[in-house]
């Protein structure tokens, strides 16, 4: 149940996009239509769910003082994390291409983009800062990815509709997307009152 709490918290209460502004670049660039947003969202869930446990293993087994090398190598963290993310994205791209060419063509362009999606590296850094254990890091990765997925689908749906509204010309497009994200952020803040541990405490 502890894992469930972490998942809910990462997805709704501490949403990576709306509470921490992570992954804003691709969030704004790829949210013009729901279909592409859906594809990118799925890819992000996938990559976050994979890289998080791998980066956990790296930081615990290689970089920490109790690791294989027996010394504090945390200054190498950034380089190793980003290398893992870049190679994982490459790997995912290759696997998807082999297993499901249809999914690959629909995701194709967005997969390499994920390397520079701040949400992925940010998730790994948060995981280290919050000292999650191995299973918790998986739950956090999936939850964070799911939250990102929800946010990009929501903004894409709103942007598809708002194209027919009478927005001031100078505010059209990006300006409006910013303000919408702000409003969504406030809406998500109302979820802050939820205490996931209280939901499960009664059982």
């Amino acid at each position, binding site marked *: 149940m502890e894992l469930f709490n972490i998942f809910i918290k990462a997805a709704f209460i501490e949403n990576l996009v709306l509470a921490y502004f992570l992954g804003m*670049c691709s969030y704004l660039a790829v949210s013009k239509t729901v279909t592409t947003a859906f594809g990118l969202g799925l890819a992000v869930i996938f990559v976050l769910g994979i890289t998080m446990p791998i980066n956990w293993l790296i930081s615990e087994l290689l970089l920490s003082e109790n690791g294989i090398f027996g010394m504090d190598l945390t200054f190498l963290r950034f380089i190793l994390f980003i290398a893992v993310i870049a190679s994982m994205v490459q790997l995912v791209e290759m696997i998807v291409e082999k297993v499901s060419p249809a999914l690959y063509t629909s995701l194709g362009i967005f997969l390499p983009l994920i390397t520079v999606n*701040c949400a992925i590296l*940010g998730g790994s850094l948060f995981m280290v800062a919050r000292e999650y254990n191995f299973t918790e890091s998986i739950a956090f990765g999936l939850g964070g990815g799911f939250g990102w997925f929800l946010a990009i689908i929501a903004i894409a749906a709103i942007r598809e509709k708002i194209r027919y509204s009478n927005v001031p010309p100078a505010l*059209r497009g990006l*300006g409006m997307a910013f303000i919408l994200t702000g409003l969504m952020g406030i809406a998500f803040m109302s979820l802050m009152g939820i205490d996931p541990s209280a939901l499960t405490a009664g059982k």
Partner: protein
Amino acid sequence: MAETTATTTEVTVKEKEPLFGKAEKKLLLDPLGDTNPITIQVLGICSALAVTSLVYPSVVMAIAVVFVCGFSSLFTSLVRNKIPKQVRMIVQLVIIATLVTIVELTLKRFNYPIYKQLSVYIGLIITNCIVMGRLEAYAMANRPWRAFVDGLGNGVGYGVILIIVAVIREIFGKGTLFAGSPIQINIIGASNAEVGYLINTAAESGIGSLFAGYTNNNLMVLPAAAMFIIGILIWIQRTYRPTLVDVS
């Protein structure tokens, strides 16, 4: 550092061009307005908006980004002809990650409170799209000195927006400027930045007493306020430059 300066001057002297001519000036100043990284290119919003609730960390963040952006452009441009095309992303990321590690360790040594406050956002400069974006778009195809100036210009253009947003948010959200730094100024409302946004006590001294009745605006402390302010900045800029309006 001395080595790199030598290389850049050598290149420019060979070309018989002024070290800082018109082209360089354009590279440096354009990102402040017409090609601003945040309001026009909309790159690099990810890593830094959350730090803009106070001015002091934003200034530190801006300096860090200018440093990383400038020097990563310089180094990438120096090795640009030796990088195979397939692995260029990895090479660029390693260069950026190394520079960010330098920034992180420097901050940790010389300003620990700020290091704690910025926490993961320092590391996130690596995935700041503006750094990668400039490397891909400019540094991979241009000479080191130009690339360096371009990187600096974009870093500054980014930092300026960061600081504008932070000034607005801090004044209205906490009633102070530069809270946490040695030169903290109390502008309006409460004088204590710590209790500032919860209870509005009358200001004790300084300019603050003029507006002692002001209640701090909690909205400005929320992350959402940064989105609104940037949205409004984009609105203002595009009202005066209708050519920048996007059609979709």
